[in-house]
Each structure stands twice: as C-alpha cells, then as structure tokens.
C-alpha cells in the first residue's frame, strides 16, 4: 500500500515537477487574490451609492457571477472565446474568470462590512468637513474590513483552493504538475504528495478560521 501511494523513490523523482507546480500555485494565488479583492472593493464602493440605477445592475452582476460555477466560467472563456477569434491562453482565462467570480463574492463581503458601520459615523465625518471619499477611506473602510475579516479570510482560502481549476486549462499549477508526474510514473504518489502539500499549506488558515467562526457565531446571540 505504502509502495503504491507513498513511494519514496517516486517522491524523489517527481519532486522537481511538483515543486515547480507549488511555486506556480503560490504565484497564481498572489495574482488572483489581490485581483479579486480589488474587484470586490470596486463593486462594494459602487453599491454604497444608494441610487437604484447603480444598485440594481450591480445586484444582477453579482448574482449572475455567483450563479455560475467557476469552472463553467473558465471553460466558457477558454473554449468559447477562440470561436470569436480571441485566444487568451489558460493563464489569462483563469485570471479573468477569477476576477469575475471571486470578485463578486468579495464584493458581497465588503458590502456587508460597509453596511455594518452605522450611518451616523459617516454623517459625523462629513460634518467635520471630510469629503464622501475621505469618510469612506478613513472612517468606514477600516471598520468594515475589521468586521468582516473572518469572511474575507474564508473566501481567500476558497480562492487559493480554486486555483486548482487551472489544471483543467493546462496552467502548470500544483495539481496539473502532479497529474503530469502521475502519468509519467504510472503511480498515484505525486497526487498524494500534492494533496499533502495543499493540506500543510492551508491547514493553519483553516485552524485560524475555525476559531474565528466559532467565536463569531457564539457571540452573535
């Protein structure tokens, strides 16, 4: 059993391939997480304009991209767009799909955070002479982010896990590289190794989140 699923020789042989994948997963995460945060922040800031002409299209946009499974969005871009003469390549498709999908999730979280700050604070800020943007920047956002920090972290965990979808469009991230190594060695060890790496990489975050969530739910009664 150990010979099959955790073969030391195969670990040694496939190590460079797997590590290259790990580096790409980290790199991909470092690109798509800020991209999603940025997209979400813009959505939430737009949503704070309480005009129905802004609010409704935003809600449609957010629900639209939350209803699509991320993989469907990715395939749509990767396999559909070339028919319109637009071949972006796997990496760009992942970046765009994530921007649309995770941006919508981050947007909902930021919006909840902004709404959690009492309106009186903005009014107080405005009355001392701060502009709308300044009030948002210095009074609302810092508190909003603190209030929804567990949700932001939880979504970030999901985004990092989602980077494994890159393997479907041949982005050489951890899962893709592990599958390559598996088909080269005729042995499942590289995939097991990849799973162990994901677990070790994300476990601390899961532990932290589990504490934060327990406290949040218990404190909200």
């Amino acid at each position: 059993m150990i010979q099959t699923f955790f073969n030391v020789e195969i670990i040694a042989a496939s190590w460079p391939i797997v590590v290259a994948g790990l580096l790409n997963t980290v790199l991909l995460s470092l690109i798509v997480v800020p991209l999603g945060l940025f997209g979400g922040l813009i959505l939430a800031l737009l949503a704070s304009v309480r005009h129905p002409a802004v609010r409704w299209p935003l809600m449609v946009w957010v629900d639209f991209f939350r209803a699509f499974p991320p993989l469907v969005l990715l395939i749509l871009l990767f396999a559909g767009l070339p028919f319109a003469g637009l071949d972006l390549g796997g990496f760009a498709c992942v970046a765009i799909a994530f921007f649309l999908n995770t941006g919508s999730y981050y947007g909902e979280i930021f919006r909840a955070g902004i709404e959690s700050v009492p309106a009186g604070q903005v009014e107080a800020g405005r009355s001392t002479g701060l502009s709308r943007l300044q009030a948002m920047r210095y009074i609302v956002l810092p508190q909003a982010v603190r209030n929804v920090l567990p949700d932001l972290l939880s979504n970030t965990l999901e985004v990092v896990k989602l980077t494994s979808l890159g393997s479907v469009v041949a982005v050489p991230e951890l899962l893709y590289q592990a599958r390559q190594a598996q088909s080269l060695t005729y042995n499942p060890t590289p995939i097991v190794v990849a799973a162990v790496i994901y677990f070790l990489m994300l476990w601390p975050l899961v532990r932290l989140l589990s504490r934060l969530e327990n406290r949040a739910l218990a404190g909200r009664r």
Partner: protein
Amino acid sequence: MTTWDRFVDTFFNGKVMLKYLPDILWGVVVTIELAVLIVLSGLAAGLALALLRSLAIRPLNWLIIFIVDLFRSLPPLVIIVLMYFGLPYAEVSPSGFVSTWLSLAFVLMAFSEEIFWAGITSVHKGQWEASRSTGLSFGQTLMNVVLPQALRLTIPPLTNRTIAITKGTALGTVVAVSEILGAASSAMSNSYNPSPLMMGAAAYLVLFLPVVILARRLERRFAWKK
C-alpha cells in the same frame, strides 16, 4: 453576412442547439441527481459528526476535528482526482459520478459539521444544565432544547456553503461525468461549435440563479440580530 449574423451563427446556432438540446437536458438531470445526493448525504453526515462531537469524547473529537480540517483545506478537485485516478491503483475503481458525489459530500460534511457545531456551542451552558436538572436526558436536551435553537442560527451560513459546494458538480466534467458542463463540452467538440456551451451556461443560470436569490432572502430573514 454581417458580423452580427456571424456572431449569432457561431454562438447561438439554432440547428446545433436543437440537435444537442436532449444531451444538455440529460446533463441537467445528472447535475440535479448529483446535487441532491451531495446535499442529503453531506448535511446528514455533517450533523451526525457534530452530534458525535457533543458527546465530548476526547480522542474521538480530535479525530473529527482532523477529518473536518482535512476536507476543508483540500481543494475539491484534488479530492475528486485522487479518488478517480488514485484509488484504481488499490483495486477500487469508483465511477466518475461516485467520485464526484463522495468527494463533494465529504467537503460538505466537513463544512456543515463546523457550522452545526458552532450552532450547538452557541446555546448557553445554563440551558443544558437547566434542562438536565428538570429530568431530561442528554439526548432529550439535545433534541428538544439545543438543536431547535442551534439549527435556526445555522441556516444562513449553511445555505451559502451548500450552494457553493453544489456548484462544484461542474468539476465532474474532469472525471468524465456527463453533467451539464460535461455534456456541453462534448457536444461542442462534436459539433465544432460553441452553441452547446452557451446552452450549458444558460442551464446553470436557470438552475442556480433562483437558488442564489432565494439564499439572499433567507439570509435577510434569518439574519443574526446584533
């Protein structure tokens, strides 16, 4: 032919759409089957684990926490791939459908255990003690006093998580399950035309948009009072 006509002919080709409509509809059936199986088995297993955990048996709880953490930190696609491509080396060959179902059910189990457990612990200790002192057994207290309060609290986070994991059924495509995306992809490569993919995308919207909107309402209805 104008550009617009060419666009419509490529992405919304009537002939192709009509031809592959049955395939896509069949994909919808498979997606719904998968989703129902995942939700039922995942939530049941999650609740069972949370109840087991409330018995407060130390070594058992460590095991539960480890399992929950494991399935929360592994990407669902990695679990599916491991089952479908890995297990056959141990002479067990689950089909793509079973791999997708079990993997996502495990993930939902982990997330829902966490939420159920948070709900259970949120009920004040005094209520346990009060119920027990009136002569209710441990089981009665759990069923009649704690769970009704705990479950109400878990509805919003549970709904969101369940939807997110159910959307993962699309991952089945990777292991050759012909759910919506799988059916659409193979129809696309058979017809050299992206119209089936557009149909598949529309099918996802029809399935999930109502659920997302419903969840938004539920969230407001059961919102935590601050």
